């Protein structure tokens, strides 16, 4: 529990107090150990409480993430209305890349996080969901240098997403910039499918710039 606020508080004529209204906040991590009290209060534990109603995209990505235990993917599109599909990670990398795209005039279609070395089917599922959003024709696949998540596994996932949707990976993936673990194996796969990629010598900013130019730059 991180916050308990009682307001207003009423004093009865016999001197006792009654809380007329209360507001409580609990972090998700603590819910497990307070199940009893939450049930008593009538809180539905199967319905995670968000600040807003999740979109179909957000719900679908959550379901793909829950389908297997390898790695984590997240996707949000609340507040995002652009056409640049972002397959990005991890926590800090995603924040940095979203800024880099926006600050170079790009309009992201979504926010995403890949982490913890997800399975091929998970990155494939995330990329497919993004590519099926209205107005999204191309994706940018970018992360900060990875040490646990594998470059070749993500490459397989995003290329497979294109193929399964009947799209050419070389056309659909504007840029692939994930340096790090198993990068040489990943580059072999990307070469085979004609996907433009960048290693660690290309900054996250420049990779994002390439994505903006190729997706929004009027076919440049």
């Amino acid at each position, binding site marked *: *529990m*991180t916050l308990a606020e009682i307001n207003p508080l009423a004093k009865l004529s016999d001197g006792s107090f009654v809380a007329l209204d209360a507001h409580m906040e609990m*972090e*998700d*991590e*603590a819910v*497990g*150990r307070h199940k009893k009290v939450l049930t008593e209060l009538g809180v539905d534990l199967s319905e995670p409480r968000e*600040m807003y109603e999740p979109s179909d995209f957000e719900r679908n990505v959550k379901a793909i993430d829950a389908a297997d235990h390898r790695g984590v993917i997240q996707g*949000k599109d*609340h*507040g995002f209305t652009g056409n640049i599909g972002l397959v990005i*990670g*991890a*926590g*800090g*990398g*995603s*924040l*940095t890349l*979203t*800024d*880099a795209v*926006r*600050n170079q005039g790009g309009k992201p279609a979504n*926010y995403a*996080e890949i982490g913890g070395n997800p399975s091929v089917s998970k990155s494939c599922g995330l990329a497919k969901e993004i590519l099926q959003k209205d107005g999204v024709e191309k994706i940018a696949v970018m*992360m*900060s*240098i*990875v*040490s*646990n998540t594998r470059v070749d596994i993500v490459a397989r996932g995003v290329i497979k997403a294109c193929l399964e949707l009947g799209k050419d990976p070389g056309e659909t993936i504007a840029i692939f910039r994930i340096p*790090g*673990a198993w990068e040489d194996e990943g580059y072999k796969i990307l070469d085979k499918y004609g996907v433009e990629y960048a290693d*660690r*010598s290309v*900054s*996250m*900013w*420049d990779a994002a710039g390439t994505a903006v130019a190729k997706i929004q730059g009027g076919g440049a």
Partner: protein
Amino acid sequence: MSILLNEDFTFIVQGITGREAVNLTRECLDFGSSIVGGVTPGRKGREVHGVPVFDTVEQAVEHHGKPIDGAVATVPPAFTKDAVFEAIENGIKLIVVVTERIPRRDVAEMVELADERGARIIGPNCLGLIAPGVAKMGGIGGPAKDAAKAYVAGSVGVMSRSGGMTTEISSTLTAAGLGVSTAVSIGGDAIIGSTYADLMPLFEEDPQTEAIVIYTEPGGRMEAELVEWREEAGSTMPIVAFMAGRFMDDESMKGMTFGHAGTIVEGKEDSATEKIKRLESAGITVVERIDEIPDAVKERIGA
């Protein structure tokens, strides 16, 4: 030199038989770290990459025959508090808590006990720390050969709320010929054991460190505390900050969490814009791009 770690530094891995912990143990040993034991209750007598496994921290210390300096805790969230308490009670002074999703109250209790006993916690929800050429403690930088690519010994101290970005930034510093003295992934949670302000005095004392780079995000008071510390201590060590998550200042993103558990804008004070203003007012250089960091550091140290 480096902060927190040195050539003789010894540590144990709590939860050593878990999948991630086995990898982390291999990586640290390959990087030259001295892991003197592992703890997983019920697994005494086993070995992980040649490291003996014990049921308790006490047994590990007894086997080692003298105090052990550190512990990496990689146990499930519900058991992390007990593991950290056990480490502190057995005289361990530096505990890296890798585990994420620990209830906040537990973290608060861990940090309080560490304070009382003169121990230090790094994390939770972090990748640990690395002193190039000396040792690494935690999964930071990945396998030894990958870690050696991004981290070469040099003059810049790095502190980051993101584990992955610690490596991205250090790689940029290494490529620019500046190198890294010690890099610390401090963790992405709302409450962490060691903040920028907590670690700054150590970097100040380290003769190898000439400048600091911090990676920061919206949410929390950590940057404000760094500024307060800097002013109170009269510190002039050059600091370059990179602020990610500026897009979260948009009205449409209010109350949403991105990235890490601690990355949520709750009031005006913890927005990216406000934090940048505050950092700059204290003479800290704030850059917009990661690739601008090396030049900003060189300018500040006059290299």
